[in-house]
């Protein structure tokens, strides 16, 4: 009996009000007050120190300022006053929010977003986590569920009662709670997006594009393309398909919005594209990377940066046909204006591996001439000598 009560107690905690868009009035320079909230903020403050000083952070140029301007435009200057945004070079599609108002944006997200509205959709979602204090409630939920699990384990052990199933359900309830928070943040973020004049459908389009990329990625790895219609037991987020669907439905009820600001977005990201691409090409995800490249090329045409990255992608897979393709992409990149001498080195290496030594020598020599002090100059010289 006691077990049932305990279990119900834990299950009843993750009660989240859905479809409730009324926000608490904005408090400038909010300070956490309860012991729990001050605790999670303290942990976040320590985490943010690390993030601020992280070598992954993209400090050059005004990238972080641009990201923050987009957020401010979306949620309003008063709300965004409590937010710091850190852009980090991590080639995955993600962004995250700390309870104290520090937001982390991965370069993988910036590489994939096709316009400012798609970026704003994700930033708005993360901001909603902050506004709704999801870190705090998530912590409380985990604590409640694990407390119940600990009691069940001990009492079950003493009374020789099997409790594994109940514990498993409790564990599942933690993930379920997290998914509910994600949906809640999706819906509030969508409201911000629509209010600020960006096209409301952009939020759904983010997930549609991500699903298409996942398919391309699976094909590239010779895996079965799996469409997940609903979230699994241990999933922290709802299935992409479900998100795309409910975001599209909800967007239909909101003002459609206007300009997605694709040009402004591309101009802001352009200085970083080759850096973001280099990180993506190292992921050993041929299908996914090809998908991203051809998507960008559809909008901007095949630029030198894109062609060079494509050459890198093919050279890394390194079948004879890939090396042939890679050499071709490098040549095209050069014609399109890609000027870094590393292109000559990589072209030379691709050619050499496929036995086209004469042309390879020319390219490698050009690299050595341009970068006599490169860290791999000795290795390249040795290759040339053979």
């Amino acid at each position, binding site marked *: 009996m006691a077990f049932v009560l305990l279990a119900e107690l834990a299950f009843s905690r993750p009660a989240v009000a859905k479809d409730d868009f009324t926000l608490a009035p904005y408090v400038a320079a909010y300070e956490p007050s309860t*012991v729990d909230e001050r605790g999670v903020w303290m942990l976040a403050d320590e985490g943010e*120190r690390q993030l601020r000083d992280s070598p992954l952070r993209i400090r050059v140029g005004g990238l972080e300022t641009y990201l923050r301007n987009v957020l401010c435009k979306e949620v309003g200057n008063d709300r965004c006053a409590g937010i710091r945004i850190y852009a980090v070079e991590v080639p995955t599609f993600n962004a995250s929010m700390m309870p104290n108002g520090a937001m982390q944006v991965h370069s993988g997200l910036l590489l994939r977003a096709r316009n400012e509205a798609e970026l704003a959709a994700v930033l708005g979602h993360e901001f909603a986590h902050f506004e709704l204090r999801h870190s705090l409630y998530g912590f409380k939920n*985990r604590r409640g*569920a*694990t407390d119940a699990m600990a*009691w069940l384990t001990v009492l079950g052990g*003493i009374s020789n009662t099997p409790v594994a199933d109940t514990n498993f359900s409790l564990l599942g309830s*933690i993930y379920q709670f*997290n998914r509910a928070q994600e949906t809640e943040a999706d819906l509030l973020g969508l409201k911000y997006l629509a209010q600020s004049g960006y096209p409301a459908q952009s939020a759904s389009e983010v997930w549609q594009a991500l699903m298409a990329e996942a398919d391309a990625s699976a094909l590239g790895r010779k895996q079965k393309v799996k469409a997940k219609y609903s979230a699994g037991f241990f999933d922290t987020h709802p299935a992409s398909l479900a998100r795309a669907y409910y975001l599209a439905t909800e967007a239909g009820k909101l003002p459609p919005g206007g300009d997605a600001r694709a040009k402004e977005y591309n101009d802001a990201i352009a200085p970083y594209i080759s850096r973001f691409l280099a990180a993506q090409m190292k992921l050993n995800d041929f299908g996914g990377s090809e998908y991203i490249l051809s998507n960008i090329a559809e909008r901007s045409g095949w630029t030198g940066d894109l062609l060079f990255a494509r050459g890198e992608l093919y050279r890394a897979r390194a079948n004879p046909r890939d090396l042939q393709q890679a050499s071709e992409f490098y040549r095209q990149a050069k014609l399109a204006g890609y000027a870094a001498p590393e292109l000559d080195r990589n072209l030379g290496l691709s050619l050499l591996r496929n036995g086209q030594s004469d042309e390879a020598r020319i390219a490698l020599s050009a690299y050595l001439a341009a970068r006599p002090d490169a860290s791999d100059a000795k290795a390249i010289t040795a290759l040339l000598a053979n």
Partner: protein
Amino acid sequence: MRINNFARACLLALACCMSATVIGQEKTGNKEGFALKPGTVKIILMRPVIGVGEQSTGGLYEPNADWTTQARGHLGTALSEAQTQLGNQVMPYEESAGAEGPLVTQYSQLFNAVADSVIEYQFFPGNRLPTKKRDKGFEWAVGPGIAELKSLEGADYALFISTHDEYGSTGRKMLQIVGMLGGIGVTSGVHQGYAGLVDLKTGELVWLNADRQMGGDVRTPEGAQKRVRQLLEGFPGKPVALTTAQP
């Protein structure tokens, strides 16, 4: 993404719930032949990593901002007292000193990684790497690049301190008592800490002291003094009044 590894952590917490074995561990490592002459050196105290909170019934860490602030103050006072007794000059690292913040943070992280490796691969007999056996001495470093940091100029050594305390919550203690009645071992409370000294000219780790079961309530001035005595056990610049300090 926030709770991706959560299932694993849960299982681990439950497993820890059931194990009460304490594994024998060496606590101190000294670079061979190294001695610090008392009263001769300037030591810079890097920003200590301090976390104080409760342990929930289920074993989660519940951070407590007030306790952590108290501990930060008390530990700082106790540390400078202990070093003054040695005649050493201890200065806290000035965060605002120049634009080297990111680099200094990276060195602090590097120190943590090195210290973890020492604890993992040298302090536990049976788990020692072949190059880190007892007769191979104590050879660890963060690299000579640390000598070039402008904000550490003028100091001879950098002292790194890290403590983590989780006091058993009422619920955890209840669970422990009930478990005890039924013959199930439940641990309550986590008190770990380590301290290390890095030579700022060579980057060598000259001394490390680590303890996974520390005493002293860091939320009080007296407890913090006891904790500092334990943290500085084996400090090359002896003698702290260690004989009076029984945990």
